[in-house]
């Protein structure tokens, strides 16, 4: 019996040490990517190519989801607010929830599952088929040539996608509240504009999505680069990218929110 207890304690210890070890590897890799980013900026076409894959190809899912989220917000908000006779505040509700929270968070989650997993799978497969080794043997650093452009493409795309998500959401809310239900258009927009502060709400939302972009793409490239070079290894890494990114986004969101909106309102 005591032996079993000892082994289970050992198992916990092993997991913790492993986790910290991986965290250290990830941090070192992240610094390495930043240090080797010069190539990405000197040859910006590499980044543009990757923006196409992670940004442009994520557009459809981001825009459609944004529209639906906004429409649901409009409908639910109207249902609740009309009990208090303040339907015109539905604009405020839709815009604030989108700009502050749902826009950055939802689009980052979608981005992680659409683009993050694709980045991991691509880099992982390149590793499994020895393309990264081959590149290294050709005296081309795979981190500078493959990883860094993908990282920067993700970091650039994320805030843009979040902004589009929010705009589509506001449009969706407008569609439901004003066009379908018939809330007064003027009060919809003016209550929104009164409540949403440019620096306080919008800029903070953009800052959030920048952080999420860094987190998601850093996780995605690390998992891809770190994946065991087998089919199971790559598929496991892809799953880990999505799960870890989701946790990182939500955790980071709490931390950022508590810094940004502390003690006000």
């Amino acid at each position: 019996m005591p032996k079993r207890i000892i082994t289970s304690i050992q198992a916990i210890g092993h997991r913790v040490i492993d986790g910290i070890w991986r965290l250290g590897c990830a941090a070192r890799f992240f610094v390495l990517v930043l240090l080797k980013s010069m190539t990405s900026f000197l040859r910006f076409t590499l980044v543009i190519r990757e923006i196409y894959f992670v940004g442009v190809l994520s557009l459809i899912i981001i825009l459609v989801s944004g529209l639906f989220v906004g429409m649901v917000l409009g409908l639910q908000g109207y249902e609740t607010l009309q009990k208090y006779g303040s339907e015109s505040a539905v604009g405020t509700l839709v815009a604030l929830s989108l700009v502050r929270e749902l826009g950055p968070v939802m689009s980052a989650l979608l981005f992680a599952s659409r683009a993050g997993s694709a980045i991991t799978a691509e880099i992982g497969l390149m590793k499994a088929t020895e393309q990264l080794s081959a590149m290294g043997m050709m005296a081309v650093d795979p981190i500078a040539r493959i990883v860094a452009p993908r990282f920067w493409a993700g970091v650039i795309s994320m805030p843009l996608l979040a902004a589009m998500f929010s705009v589509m959401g506001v449009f969706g809310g407008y569609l439901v509240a004003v066009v379908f239900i018939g809330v007064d258009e003027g009060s919809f927009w003016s209550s929104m504009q009164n409540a949403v502060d440019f620096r306080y709400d919008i800029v903070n939302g953009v800052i959030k999505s920048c952080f999420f972009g860094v987190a998601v793409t850093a996780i995605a490239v690390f998992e891809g680069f770190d994946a065991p070079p087998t089919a199971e290894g790559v598929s496991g890494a892809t799953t880990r990218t999505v799960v870890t990114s989701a946790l990182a986004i939500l955790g980071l969101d709490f931390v950022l929110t508590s810094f940004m909106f502390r003690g006000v309102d």
Partner: protein
Amino acid sequence: MQRTIMDFWVGLFVMTGMGALLILGLKVGNLTTYNTGESYTLIGNFENIGGLKIRAPVKSAGVVVGRVTDIQFSLETYDAVVTVGINAYYRFPKDTFASILTSGLLGEQYIGLSPGGDEEMLAEGDKIMKTNSAMVLEEMVGRFLFDKAAED
């Protein structure tokens, strides 16, 4: 995929993203009425600020003319020191009266400015001398009961 086609899509993507940010700023937010830097600060001491918060509006005749930027407790006078930023476009006389009001019965609290008749205007860093504290419901009820008791 042809390079030029890819470049086109990425260009469109970045432009749409920028456009979305612009729409957020102009249509959703208050960037149109936003003027950073072009404001001057005034200070006022209040005996009690009630539920006044940072960023609460400062209104005069119902028009928003500025915002509360800072609230501190003063150890010298043992009251609240409220700093407000007033839009540089609006000038107020020296003897302007500042009071903490509530919009509606349970609404948010704001600072109301009632201009006086002085010829000199308030400038950057000036102190508003005449202030009126927030109405605190408990105090009002207490005073009402006290008055009633005194009548009897």
